[in-house]
């Protein structure tokens, strides 16, 4: 939708349109905006943490508030920033890459977003009443005995947004299985689509473990059960296992789509086909499979015994092999290419050494016994920021620069893009490289403060300065977005000399994406046509009516109901009157579900004649 049209329609109509939309492109916008906002909140929390740790025995914030800060920083960044921005990219790109007009379940797509948003709101509303303070891992019994309602907000918020994620995962699985354009076999799918496919599978099999863990936590805290209460025979280890059975695959859920995006970017800006495509697909699937075999490497020090520790250590090391295959394939994609160095490519190029360091420390951590020294120190903090920021956040920045024209019809400013990159990149390494050493010289993670004379002053100061550089870089990026939007320069459908299907249609794409479904004749479908001197794709069907789904407010209402019920669950511990909210909320949700079930929703058609006139563009 162009800004001009939006202005003509009035603000109310635009808001209503976004509340009810089932269009994957608009849902991508919703995910991106809300994920971006949560990213800023999480970043602010990170800055407060770094200010507190700037000098020894600092009292910038109190110990209790500090624990809330680290908990919310981790939870927000993983669940409310990284996941939704990935979903934004999935929504914006995957249907276009496979030549589909929408996802398999547009209604569920919208529901997934609203569930995520309301879950995220619950979690952040806790700032006004006392935030969760048991770490993002929320280990029992610290979490089950945490006073106040902070952990309750954590449980309800993640449960609701987790349900949204699960729905999204199923949606993309079915979309990729069923909705590919004619000729697009699995081994012709762009690598980004492949990684989304594997990521969705991981979501499907990992999130239910979190769901169960959160239910048990909820029952223990709100209804007096005894899963984690040793006094009644409970076992706190169950939470750790369930959390990491979810939590480890979650890391790959986050990183795989970034791998996919980098593959597209390296290939496009080297003007070369991806080196070792089938090996890349194989490595992606293998990483996804191994993701479920290694969760206990987060638990080397809990006392599982040497046999379990050894098995999980070796299994974890095995992941380095497919990851290494990917690194070399990326290098050799560029080898012999014609490398154009713009912002998207800068982030991708910077990713390789950064992620290699993260992978190296990953293998070091996998050595079970050595982890007795690394575990829960700043070494681990450094490691996972190297993989998650160096892999995923770099990936998000790269993807946004790369796909921004497709999503919004404008190219982000190159000069500002480079400023963002250098500030963020230098700041990142300053912040986190030194933390490896802080950990090794004895600084455990989640430390509110450290004592003078422990040799930790210099490192922490450097780290804090670096964090400020990252913050400034992020602000420059936001300025870039605003400036680009204000300028409003339009861009063609294919600004990068692209290779895949999304570059065959206008930017931003019309409501129905493809006027005629394209016929795919090989990997890098557009490139195949270009190399034969053709301008665009051969259509696979004659021009005809296009069937599109109807908008609906029901997903919003269903999520709103759960949001209301969430507060009922949290506060019924204090006073049973709050159960009224549970009934009202569940009533709204179940009522909306019933409405959805009994009211036929057949969708509508865009007619051939209108298509020829260019309607909907």
């Amino acid at each position, binding site marked *: 939708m162009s800004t001009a049209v939006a202005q003509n329609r009035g603000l109310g109509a635009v808001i209503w349109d976004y509340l009810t939309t089932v269009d994957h492109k608009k849902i991508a916008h919703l995910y991106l905006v809300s994920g971006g906002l949560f990213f800023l909140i999480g970043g602010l929390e990170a800055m407060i943490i770094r200010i507190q740790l700037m000098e020894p025995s600092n009292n910038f914030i109190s110990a209790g508030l500090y624990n809330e800060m680290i908990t919310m920083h981790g939870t927000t960044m993983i669940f409310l920033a990284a996941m939704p921005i990935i979903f934004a990219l999935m929504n914006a790109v995957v249907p276009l890459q496979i030549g589909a007009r929408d996802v*398999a*379940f547009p209604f569920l797509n919208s529901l997934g977003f609203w569930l995520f948003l309301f879950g995220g709101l619950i979690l952040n509303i806790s700032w006004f009443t006392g935030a969760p303070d048991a770490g993002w891992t929320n280990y029992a019994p610290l979490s089950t005995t945490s006073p106040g309602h902070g952990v309750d907000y954590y449980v309800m918020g993640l449960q609701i947004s987790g349900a949204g994620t*699960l729905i999204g995962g*199923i*949606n993309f*699985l*079915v979309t990729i*299985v*069923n*909705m590919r354009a004619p000729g697009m076999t699995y081994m012709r799918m762009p690598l980004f689509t492949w990684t989304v496919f594997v990521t969705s599978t991981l979501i*499907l*099999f*990992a*999130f*239910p*473990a979190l*769901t*169960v*863990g959160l*239910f*048990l936590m909820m*029952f*223990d805290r709100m*209804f*007096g*059960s*005894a*899963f984690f*209460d040793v006094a*009644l*025979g*409970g*076992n706190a280890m*169950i939470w750790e*296992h*369930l959390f990491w*059975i979810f939590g480890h695959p979650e890391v790959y859920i986050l990183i795989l789509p970034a791998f996919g995006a980098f593959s597209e970017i390296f290939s496009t800006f080297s003007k070369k086909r991806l080196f070792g495509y089938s090996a890349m697909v194989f490595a992606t699937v293998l990483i996804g499979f191994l993701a479920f075999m290694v969760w206990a490497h987060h638990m080397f020090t809990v006392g599982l015994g040497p046999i379990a520790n050894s098995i999980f250590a070796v299994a974890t090391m095995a992941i380095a092999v497919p990851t290494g295959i990917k690194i070399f394939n990326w290098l050799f994609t560029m080898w012999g290419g014609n490398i154009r160095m713009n912002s998207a490519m800068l982030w991708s190029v910077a990713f390789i050494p950064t992620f290699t360091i993260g992978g190296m420390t990953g293998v070091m951590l996998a050595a079970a016994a050595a982890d007795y020294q690394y575990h829960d120190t700043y070494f681990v903090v450094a490691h996972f920021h190297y993989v998650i920021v160096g892999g995923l956040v770099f990936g998000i920045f790269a993807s946004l620069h790369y796909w921004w024209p497709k999503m919004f019809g404008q190219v982000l400013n190159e000069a500002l893009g480079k400023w963002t990159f250098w500030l963020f990149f230098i700041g990142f390494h300053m912040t986190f490289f030194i933390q490896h050493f802080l950990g090794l010289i004895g600084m455990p993670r989640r430390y509110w403060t450290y004592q003078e004379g422990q040799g930790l002053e210099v490192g922490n100061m450097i780290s804090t300065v670096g964090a400020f550089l990252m913050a400034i870089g992020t602000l420059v990026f936001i300025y870039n977005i605003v400036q680009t939007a204000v300028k409003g320069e339009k861009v063609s459908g294919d600004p990068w000399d692209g290779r895949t299907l999304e570059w065959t249609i206008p930017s931003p794409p019309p409501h129905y994406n493809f006027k005629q479904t394209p016929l795919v004749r090989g990997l890098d479908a557009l490139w195949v046509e270009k190399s034969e001197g053709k301008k665009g794709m051969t259509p696979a069907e004659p021009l005809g*009516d296009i*069937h599109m789904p109807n908008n609906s407010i029901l997903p919003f209402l269903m999520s709103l109901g759960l949001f209301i019920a969430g507060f009922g669950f949290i506060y019924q511990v204090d006073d049973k009157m709050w159960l009224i909210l549970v009934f009202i909320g569940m009533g709204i949700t179940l009522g909306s579900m*019933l409405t959805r*079930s*009994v009211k*036929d929703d*057949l*969708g509508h*058609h865009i007619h051939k004649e209108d298509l020829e006139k260019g309607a909907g563009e």
Partner: protein
Amino acid sequence: MSNEDVLNPKEMPHEPEKATLEGKNKFIGFWFFLGGETVLFACLFGTYLALNGSTMGENTPEHLFGLELVFIMTMLLLTSSLTSVYAMYHMKNNDFGKMQLWLGITVVLGLGFLGCEIYEFYHYIHEYEFTFRSSAFGSAFYTLVGFHGGHVLFGLSWITALMIRNARRGLNLYNAPKFYIASLYWHFIDVVWVFIFTVVYLMGKVG
């Protein structure tokens, strides 16, 4: 609207649940969903197995469970799975009336199962004072079996809603996938129960 014609063909295809793209999406999407549900129940089973010895010295599984009632429940649920197969058989033959009849029987059997389960819980709570809060075993038992019971309740509501909604208009390509996945859900519930019967009741009684 041309949709109407597409969804109500003169002659119903052999597999009406997979005749449209929407139907195919629902079909495969629901299988994926059941995959996720499997992990959910696997985690609950894991938790149960970790805690089924934590009885705090009273109300052990051996002491509590009576196999007679559980056997009846198993029979009810297994039979209801079979009747839902009949319903789907008639759906494929486009015999709406018989489909509704067999679904009705399924619902009745399911209600019987649910009644037994409520009675069972009531019995444990009042005769043995064995509750959700008694011990970690109590929490794990009621959570696992209760989750399954919740699924049964949801399945019954779903099938009933579908039967009522479509009672007057009969079968078409729009609602056939809905009936089909509801019956898939019902089978899944049945399979989970077989595991509960084995792991919770039989192993509890024997082990």
